[in-house]
């Protein structure tokens, strides 16, 4: 029981308080916290991207692409978090989305697979556009 627990004299019950480390009690809780935390590095990377766009807007003389090892490591870490974030989001979409085709409910598995398929197509298209413009 947590030290923060309180005993109620009026109703003669004891209510255990939830400690700050509740999310370390179970693997599922821990993964949930990681899932929620992935938003933070993604937000940081996007803030950096906004700054880069601002610099690029000031003309070629003010812009130079970042290439330090620290930046590459930061970007790779952000990529891993982004992949995990996308994986959890698309997996949960199968739980949330529910609709019928020809009066039959579409199976969750099919919805999840189609989401991952669209993700792959979008990644290929965006990659091709970026590489195409880069040349």
């Amino acid at each position, binding site marked *: 029981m947590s030290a923060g627990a309180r*005993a109620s004299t009026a109703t003669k019950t*004891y209510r*255990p308080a939830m400690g700050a480390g*509740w999310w370390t009690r179970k693997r599922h809780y821990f993964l949930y916290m990681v899932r929620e935390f992935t938003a933070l590095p993604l937000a940081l990377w996007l803030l950096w991207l906004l700054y880069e766009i601002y610099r690029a807007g000031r003309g070629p003389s003010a812009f130079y692409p970042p290439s330090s090892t620290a930046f590459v490591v930061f970007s790779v870490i952000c990529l891993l978090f982004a992949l995990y974030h996308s994986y959890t989001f698309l997996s949960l979409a199968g*739980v*949330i989305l529910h609709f019928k085709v020809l009066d039959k409910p579409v199976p969750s598995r099919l919805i999840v697979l189609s989401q991952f398929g669209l993700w792959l197509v979008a990644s290929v298209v965006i990659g091709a556009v970026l590489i195409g413009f880069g040349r």
Partner: protein
Amino acid sequence: MAEKRITIRATRYDPEKDSAPRLQSYDIPFSDESMVVLDALNYIKSHVDGSLSYRWSCRMGICGSCGMTVNGTPKLTCAAFLRDYWPRSITVSPLNNFPIVRDLVVDMEDFMNKLKSIKPWIIRKQEVPLGAGEHRQTMDQIDDFRQFSQCINCMLCYAACPVYGLDDKFLGPAAIALARRYNLDSRDEGIKDRLPVIASSEGLWECSFVGECSVVCPKGVDPAKAIQQTKLDTTMRFVLPFGNRE
């Protein structure tokens, strides 16, 4: 051959004497491979310590009375087999997130009030007299809500929900799943009566989709799915033209 034994550590709390709960160990015979934690508690009550308090009734996963925390996980003790834990000891404590009344018994009042608040019954705008016949449903219409109607009110989902643990004003998984069960029922016309409760600030939007409620549910209800789908449906009702019409 030496008798097989197992150690059960049960929470003890006497509101007249104790300032906080404590654990008490019982070393009991593990005589039958089909023994469950509830059998162990019944053995302790009958042969070792008659003062141990806990709830139980049907012994077959239907009544939902014997939910407790077994080695940190909310479970129906009638479905938690000793063989899955032996030779380790088993710690049995009351369901998390609820006030403890005595030993393994928790106060269910908050849950019962929440259950009642979502009006878990068929609501009709115009009652039809019994003589007019039954309300007919197709199998497809039943399939729409069948999963969410399996809830036995065991409260394991509340014990597993950290959102409810941190803020007990949250309506909670089982109540929202049951509201969805009635809202999806083709005979029901009460969604507008339930929306003020389920879509309130202490309703479904409190849920951050931890998902543990669905992991511990012994009947496969999947309350997390019910909550997320209701979030989507209530948003659609708000956003779409004519979304709020009956």
